[in-house]
């Protein structure tokens, strides 16, 4: 008897349900291996609910708390939330507390909390980032998180899988961000239909873990529940560096003949740098369509755009020119750890020498927080994931999304620019 062919998503959910097989569309109750919360949607909102239910967290070893949204605390309300967060962590006896270390989606794997086969929920919409590690990870709101913390379980409708295959190999100065902007443009913000999106193909296998994280992260913009990449040696190596045994990664892949809802194939080799114009990531097209547009601000930040590798990409371009007059460059490295490594590699000096303002390791203006929010009519090019109207500041401001290469090139040019103008490798 041959086993029924299954998708990676089905295998991960079946494990969390303690079953051999789960079928698309059935509603199941899964046991949660790990729950991550941050300061904005975390203790401040779950504590009152847990108090009302008369419950503590179901397993303090399975809860990770990370402060990143209201960091650094800019006003009394934010300070009160940070204090509440620290007090709650202490009262619950939670050891995994990463306070002001960086953005949760980057810090979680960096601190070794993720591995293939896990079933994880995060109190943030970019939680699909964890799918880069072959974990079933998705975002939920605070009330639902309180339910998970009280019970250790969550319901879900077993998704279909949308398989997105990238064949060939990315050109120089083209990155995972460009892949995702292209997908948003092609499939739309609801192209993921709240199903499991799985990325595969030779161009995906060639991506580093942080690039896979960018890919999985922006599954949120595609409207998928999760964005999965089957774990492999690159995954195992990343985990090994953090002292974690990835286990048998070979079991976590979609069987060749498993039925999928849709399969889309894209050629990585012909992909050009992409830009998404205001006010939607789906407004994407090749950078050439936008090249005459002047910019006031270039922002290198966020979980999807300021990890170590993103900083390396931006610096490789900034080394080749000077910041245009009248352009303000802001860099908010995604984690303290990545900033430290970037400093050791000389990358932070590249930004400083270019006249960049270095901002804290936090969500910052990507989530509409902090004092650097965009003013009236400001035009910004940004490595972030979302450019909804008013998200990063004034409703009259406009945000163009692009890769770290393209944002750096635009900072030099003073207008949206193709990074390939600055050609050659780093």
């Amino acid at each position, binding site marked *: 008897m041959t086993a029924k062919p299954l998708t990676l998503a089905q295998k991960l959910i079946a494990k969390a349900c303690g079953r051999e097989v789960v079928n698309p569309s059935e509603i199941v109750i899964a046991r949660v291996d790990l729950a991550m919360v941050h300061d904005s949607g975390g203790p401040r909102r779950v504590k009152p609910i847990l108090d*009302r239910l008369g419950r503590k967290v179901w397993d303090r070893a399975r809860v990770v708390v990370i402060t990143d949204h209201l960091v650094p605390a800019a006003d009394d*309300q934010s300070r009160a*939330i940070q204090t509440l967060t620290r007090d709650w962590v202490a009262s619950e006896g939670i050891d995994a507390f990463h306070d002001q270390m960086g953005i949760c989606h980057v810090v979680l794997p960096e601190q070794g909390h993720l591995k293939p086969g896990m079933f994880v929920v995060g109190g943030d919409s970019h939680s699909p980032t964890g799918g880069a590690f072959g974990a079933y990870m998705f975002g*939920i*709101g*605070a009330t639902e998180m*309180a339910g998970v913390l009280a019970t250790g379980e969550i319901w879900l409708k077993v998704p279909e899988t949308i398989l997105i295959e990238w064949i060939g190999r990315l050109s120089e100065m083209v990155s995972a961000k460009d892949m995702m902007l292209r997908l948003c443009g092609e499939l739309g913000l*609801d192209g993921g239909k709240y199903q499991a999106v799985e990325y595969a193909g030779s161009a995906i296998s060639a991506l580093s873990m942080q690039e896979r994280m960018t890919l999985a992260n922006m599954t949120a913009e595609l*409207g998928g529940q999760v964005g999965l990449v089957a774990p492999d040696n690159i995954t195992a190596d990343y985990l090994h560096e953090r002292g974690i045994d990835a286990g048998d990664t070979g079991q976590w892949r979609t069987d060749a003949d498993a039925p999928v809802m849709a399969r889309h194939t894209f050629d990585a080799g012909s992909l050009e740098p992409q830009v998404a114009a205001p006010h939607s990531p789906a407004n994407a097209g090749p950078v050439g369509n936008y090249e005459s547009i002047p910019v006031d601000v270039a922002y290198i930040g966020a979980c999807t755009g300021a990890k170590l590798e993103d900083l390396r990409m931006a610096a490789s371009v900034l080394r080749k020119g000077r910041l245009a007059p009248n352009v303000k460059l802001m860099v908010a490295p995604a984690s303290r750890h990545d900033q430290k490594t970037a400093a050791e590699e000389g990358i932070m000096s590249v930004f400083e020498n270019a006249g960049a303002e270095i901002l804290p390791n936090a969500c910052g203006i990507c989530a509409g927080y902090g004092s650097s929010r965009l003013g009236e009519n400001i035009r910004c090019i940004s490595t972030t994931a979302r450019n909804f109207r*008013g998200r990063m500041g004034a409703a009259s401001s406009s945000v163009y999304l692009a890769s770290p290469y393209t944002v750096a090139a635009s900072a030099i040019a003073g207008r949206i620019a193709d990074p390939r103008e600055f050609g050659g490798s780093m």
Partner: protein
Amino acid sequence: MVMSARIWKFGDDIDTDVLAPGRYMTAPIATLAAHCLENVRPEFAASVKQGDIVAAGANFGAGSSREQAVEALKYLGVVAIVAKSFAGIFYRNAINLGLPVLECAEADLLADGSMASLDIGSGKLQIAGHAEPVECTPIPDFLMAIIADGGLVTHLEKRFAGETAS
């Protein structure tokens, strides 16, 4: 049948940043709600009345997991949202906060400003002046049970009380 609900009609991809703008996220819900949807429809928060219905196109609630996007609409008196489709996290948040969300393939037929009456159980939306009701997809029983309890917290309170009793 009393048609007491005014329909407020929006387009596709209404996102959580316009529903609950980031800059007001640390403020009390009354303040946040006053800015709900102001970037796409400035008069909405001040004009919407208790019992009204929000209708929209595809992917309503795209973006963030912030459930204040649901909370703000509830606070302003919205009793149901009818849309072609919903973003996944928003949909879950609405159920968890006890706000009925109904998918409706015919959402294009709903005109802004029309008066209507919604039967949440059957998903039938009767619009004043229409002969036939617009059919929405009924909410699955599993989720209706949470809404019927007023949201997940009360639902869990009942469950825990049951566990203690048994």
